[in-house]
């Protein structure tokens, strides 16, 4: 899922300081699962905005809503349900949602309530970890399913480096050396011979280095 966390509330208050009517708009997809921007978090943020404005002696009307997703045109269109009831939208979706509102709603002012942090998974309740960089050229079939692009601090394709100590990365002792983990795992699944392969120089044009990416599926377009 896309993992995010709420911005400092004062940063959000600064965004809406001149607004009279605000729609705090949640997303019931990834950011709901990571407890950053779902319906519950919308309630909390709306309340914090009201309290913050009250403290500042300002009047503001804050209404709450949420969409199934903010990354599909069909759902963005339903923002019309709140037509006339807001002069700014505070989106608690990831950056994709904020972009979609900006792309598709010419007149709407939209602000981000979250900092979108990474694509990851929940290791334990309340703890998320980055697992995928979305680099566009997956090598997980060569690395036992563990991603060296995002889980190695240097994104090495042939590791580990000399900074791997006792199975930990030199950037911090709390960070596993993923290349140690890759070697261990390739052993465990009987593919240790794969570690003799030297990965060639990588073409990063499929990643963000090649500019904004678009995926077109002719079999799905109409």
């Amino acid at each position, binding site marked *: 899922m896309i993992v995010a966390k709420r911005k*400092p*509330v*004062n940063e959000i208050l600064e965004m809406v300081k001149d607004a009279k009517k605000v729609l705090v708009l949640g997303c019931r997809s990834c950011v709901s699962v990571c407890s950053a921007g779902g319906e*519950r978090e919308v*309630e*909390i943020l709306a*309340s*914090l905005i*009201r*309290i*913050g404005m*009250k*403290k500042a*002696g300002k009047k503001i009307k804050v209404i709450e809503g949420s969409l199934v997703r903010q990354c599909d045109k069909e759902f963005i269109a339903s923002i019309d349900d709140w037509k006339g009831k807001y002069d700014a939208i505070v989106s608690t979706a990831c950056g994709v949602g904020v972009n979609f509102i900006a792309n598709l709603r010419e007149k709407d002012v939209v602000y981000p309530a979250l900092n979108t942090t990474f694509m990851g998974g929940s290791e334990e309740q309340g703890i998320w970890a980055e697992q995928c960089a979305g680099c566009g050229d997956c090598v997980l079939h060569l690395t036992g399913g563990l991603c060296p692009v995002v889980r190695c601090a240097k994104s090495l394709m042939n590791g580990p480096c000399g900074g791997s100590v006792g199975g930990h990365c030199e950037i911090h002792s709390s960070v596993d050396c993923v290349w140690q983990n890759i070697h261990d795992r390739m052993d465990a699944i009987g593919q240790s011979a794969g570690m003799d392969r030297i990965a060639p120089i990588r073409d990063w044009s499929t990643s963000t280095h090649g500019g904004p990416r678009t995926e077109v599926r002719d079999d799905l377009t109409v």
Partner: protein
Amino acid sequence: MSFTPDIQAFCCHYTSQQAIAEAAEQLKADGMPENVTLNRVVCTGKLQEVTILKAFENGADGVFVVGCPEETCHNRKGSARAAKRVIAIKNSLEELGLGSDRAEMFHTERGFHPEFVTAAQTMNDRITAMGPAFGDSK
């Protein structure tokens, strides 16, 4: 200028037995400040952050939560969850400039104990000293 704070208390079913069993007059005789409003919840672990925030939205100057001791919570982790949520509220209140001390978590034994009233008195003294949460804009 005298100031009587509006204080909202959220107490679990077990730690608030004193409030359930005793009438308002008896509570007052025990020393419970009259400006503390008791809100009973089934378990403080069920108390959502937004419920506490709504209390401030509605004009509370201070809010406190009373739950079981963490090690002996009737619902195992209920009061521990509540304590973490109160910390989140305290952080938000500090960020908003209201002061983190306007919210507090207390853990008291179940049943009839003077600590229940003491918690209310502590908050009443603290919030009275801090003054109104919203100044004149309340």
